[in-house]
């Protein structure tokens, strides 16, 4: 039974590790995309500020 439990743990670990790390990498991909979108928004705000300060 102990041997059976060890094997169980081994395959649980392989799967869990893949699932968690893939989720983590997917999360990072989204963060990169969002950070780029934020940069665009910031640029818009800066441009508007500049425009207002000139007028």
């Amino acid at each position: 039974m102990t041997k059976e439990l060890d094997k169980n743990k081994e395959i649980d670990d392989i799967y869990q590790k893949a699932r968690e790390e893939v989720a983590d990498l997917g999360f990072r991909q989204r963060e990169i995309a969002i950070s780029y979108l934020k940069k665009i928004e910031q640029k818009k705000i800066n441009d508007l500020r500049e425009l207002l300060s000139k007028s």
Partner: protein
Amino acid sequence: MTSEKSQNFFKDGKEKPIVTKFSGEKNEITESLPVKIENYLNSLNKLKDESRLDTTEALDLIMDSKDDHSSALFYEKKEAINEIKKLDGEKIVLITDSEKALQDKHKEYVDIKKPWLDAEPSKSIDYESLMQEKEILKYRELKVLAAVSYKKIKDHAASLGVEISGLPEEKISYTGDYLNSGVYNTDSDDIKVKSNSAKVIIHEELHFAGAVDNREGRKHMGENRLSKSGFGSVWKAKEGEAKNRDLLRSLNEAVTEKMAGEIFNNNKESIISDVIKADPEIAKLNDELVEKEKALALANLERYLPDKYKTFQENVFIQKFEMEKLSFEELAAEEKQKIESKFNSEMFDVRNQEMLREKNGYNNEIRVLDAILEKLSQARTGQENISLDEARNKEWQDMQRAYLRGETIYLRRIEKIVGPNVLREFSAIDLKKVKREEETAESYQKKINDLIGRINN
């Protein structure tokens, strides 16, 4: 929650619950190791799809961002895309390695217990065959949509007095290209699209229709011309030139996209009903497959939920995704709700709206085309003594006729009235260069604005 409680939760009085016990717990193992590995392999397969979706969504967020500042953030955009693609590669390697490790474990175990395993039906086969059926149905739907879309183009051409031929539904397939939603290849005469979008299909089918040499079976187009569609043609590179010359591509794409937009908008209401009329089984088959997949997903949920709950309890996901701490019942209800709404959105009545999702391209090229058409129409008003509206209508119809017949002689009219260099200048502006990062969006935009300014003067 104890594992006994979780078992009770799944009991609905009809079926015996499927329970996965965790390593390290003192309970006995109720699921055989090979079956467990097969389930994990199945889940990894799904994880592959989800992972691909994450990548596409992240890239779409960047590519679809409507901003006037992309030129200023050119390198940030490039870097973000590269980083996302790099992480995609890491995910693929991770999943593939895990699959390999599980397959090795499976083999190891099966070698010992083979007679017993042979008696067990493989659960993964169900899912595999279901995915294959889905793929076949998606192709069938694509081909029907391609046939319906081409009928709309034929009707439009007939209203202009032009007869067009060809069966694009036999030449259409999917592409995995991230950057292009569709492409027509004049050499192979193939159309490739990213999704079942009628607008994109109509655009590519117009290129297909406009490739009159291909439609009429003419193989030889002269010594140096490699292919032709509508007003665009590809010519062999001259000595010293690195690439073949893609002439009048921008004008050709602008005419194609403007025409595609009009055909799509005039027929939007009837596209889905025509698809159903052409192949009445599609909706039924789609919904049957969705139900089957949903049943598999719900059965799978029973297997992985105790596992997921344990992970929740260990706070692994709570920290990363800022989720609230849920009870087992709440988590189960939430997961079931996710499955319900995922599969509801895949039922034909909901999913068919994908076909009508509008994707507008070549907006800048169409601005140049509109300026050219306006100049031609103004000249026509005086020449034929007709109103400007009538002249605009006639001019646009003439241009479409010439495109569909491949009559490049029409272009002389543009050179004569709008200016001798306009076509050459328009040809030199190429959105592809921005996509390939050979030119910045800022420089491309400036060229477009300058050209429109020159046409208007």
